[in-house]
């Protein structure tokens, strides 16, 4: 029941996102219609361009025919997006969906590795800090975590590029894979892809794990002070099991939603990162689209990011009850 309701809500959100995207197209000064018209007029050089032809051109790029009434335009836009047609990129001259399908896996690759590492390092370090509360290690780690967490990832990225690739040449400066390598599952190709991913991932992880560690530390310290931890010790439960099953699990729970939301938000954050490393992911194309006024591509990018956040939050909501029994997603369980 809850799942159905929640998916229904997500559908409404999706429709709202599409609607806002549609409104944005029309609201932007010098919007895509004008941009295309201006382009055609510039290249045609004359004022006697056929308006119907022009409108057809605008429609093929943006899925919206400016000559039809607003509700028809809206209907056309929504239906074509739901069919996976995001329009035509002006700059690249290819369907937007094609560009996104090609770029998205690279972004997902970077972000998955970065987020998993961020949370893994943060959780382990945070738990270790909690167990060593008040020691030099704890104080030192807190300071380092705070410090690194306050560095914006793009500053870290620029520093890493400057030192590790330009000065020392340890890692490649840009791109996702060496030119000339054929995509395959061979060791050399996969290795090369990971090699190129090291710096972008590192800049996200280095500036990100501190926040996770400090949150985890706080949660774990609170857990360690709970009565049931003391009872578990008295019951003879081994310390390692208490650390994992009692302290760890209960301290991580509140961070789960944060984890899923951060997945969504990192899609947005990838824009500048991929630009710095000229990494051809979603963010890279989005920024290209903005600088070349490629509205259809821009809109497609925004839409994908919004949908990504939405899906992650939806997954978090639907799975939370599986990991925390106190949140029940149906009426099957009773309280006595």
């Amino acid at each position, binding site marked *: 029941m809850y799942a159905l309701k929640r998916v229904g809500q997500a559908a409404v959100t999706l429709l709202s996102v599409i609607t806002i995207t549609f409104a944005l197209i029309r609201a932007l000064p010098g919007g895509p219609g004008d941009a295309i018209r201006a382009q055609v007029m510039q290249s045609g050089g004359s004022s006697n361009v056929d308006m119907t032809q022009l409108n057809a051109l605008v429609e093929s790029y943006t899925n919206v025919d400016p000559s039809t009434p607003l509700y028809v335009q809206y209907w056309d836009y929504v239906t074509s997006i739901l069919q996976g047609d995001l329009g035509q990129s002006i700059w690249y001259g290819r369907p937007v969906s094609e560009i996104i399908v090609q770029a998205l896996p690279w972004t997902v690759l970077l972000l998955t590795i970065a987020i998993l590492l961020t949370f893994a390092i943060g959780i382990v370090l945070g738990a270790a800090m909690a167990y060593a509360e008040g020691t030099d290690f704890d104080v030192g780690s807190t300071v380092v975590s705070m410090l690194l967490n306050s560095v914006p990832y793009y500053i870290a990225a620029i520093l890493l590029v400057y030192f590790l690739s330009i000065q020392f040449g340890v890692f490649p400066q840009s791109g996702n894979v060496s030119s000339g390598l054929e995509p395959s599952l061979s060791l050399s190709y996969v290795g090369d892809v990971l090699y190129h991913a090291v710096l972008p991932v590192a800049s996200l992880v280095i500036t990100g794990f501190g926040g996770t560690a400090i949150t985890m530390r706080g949660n774990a310290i609170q857990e360690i002070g*709970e*009565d*049931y931890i*003391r*009872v*578990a*010790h*008295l*019951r*003879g*439960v*081994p310390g390692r*099991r208490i650390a994992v*099953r*009692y302290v760890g*699990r*209960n301290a991580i*729970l509140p961070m789960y939603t944060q984890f899923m939301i951060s997945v969504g938000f990192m899609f947005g954050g990838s824009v500048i990162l991929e630009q710095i490393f000229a990494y051809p992911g979603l963010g890279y194309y989005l920024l290209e689209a903005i600088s070349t006024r490629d509205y259809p591509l821009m809109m497609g990018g925004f839409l994908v990011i919004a949908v990504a956040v939405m899906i992650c939050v939806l997954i978090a909501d639907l799975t939370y009850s599986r990991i*925390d*029994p*106190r949140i029940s997603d149906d009426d099957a*369980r*009773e*309280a*006595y």
Partner: protein
Amino acid sequence: MTTMQPTDVSTVEDPIFEVRNTSVSFDMARGESNVLDSVSMDVRRGEVLGVVGESGSGKSMFASALLDAVVDPGMVTGDITFHPESGEPVEILGLPEDEIKRIRWEQIAMVFQGAMSSFNPTMTVGAHFEETLSVHDRPVEAGMDRARDLLSELYLEPAQVLGSYPHELSGGMKQRALIALALVLDPEVLVMDEPTAALDLLMQRNIIELIKQIAAERDLTIVFITHDLPLVANLADRLAVLYAFEFVEVGPAYEVLTGAKHPYTRALLNSTPNLDTPREEMQPIAGAAPDPVSVPDGCSYHPRCPLADERCVEEDPPLDADDPADDHAAACHYVERVREEIPLTLQEVRRHE
């Protein structure tokens, strides 16, 4: 402070616990805090010993010391000898970690003040039982049968409770489930530290009745810690009164309740709120309980005691009975004057059965 010699009253026949000169202290910035000050007390096998005292009198420390489970950074010193039913006596303090882990819960179990939060919220109640059985290398199947029996005896529906998560149970159910969990390894001693503190009055009486029943059936020794004298009156065989981190009186429950020998115990009895007592007749004890960093010299109760004189300020009275055969004693220089000078106003104490 004079040292307390083991006397007739702190020793009993067939003790299960012999506590001698045991102290618990915490190092604090403003000095050493003695939250249990060289106490000696025996626990008789099979009895229910009620340990009564106000907040901050050291009663929880006494309970934790019995299992060497005082929270860090507390330091326990002294001798606590545990006499298991079969086998050699064991020195609890200073036992290697793996050996004390065997004794805890298998022979001495404890139910805490925070019963409401004694279960891991992300594990079913049943998983706590299974976990406890398996870490102590007990056969899980047989142990779970025993757990089901215990739960039924405590008027719980075993299948329902074992399959529930802690938040799905009411406070009273959780409390009873915790008692069952404490008894699942069939311990000889159950230490209960204010086990009913978070429950309503009806549920408290209810639980006390159940504890009484279970203790009788299983030859269980119970050390019951509480601040609530009337609550324990019905349950305890003997009462020991703690004041300022020392035992000031010990004796058979009924005798302590009706003929308390220590001025503090009498004041405590007189200050017990009772629904029938008009408010103007309530007698709170004047003054405040001493600070653990600076306990008064001599008798620690002298600043609040109406009988106190020079001698009380200078000399710490031992916990001694006038008559060596008497098992009821108070640490007071003027035991013989107490009865007349501090009359008991308590109208009725239900006879302990």
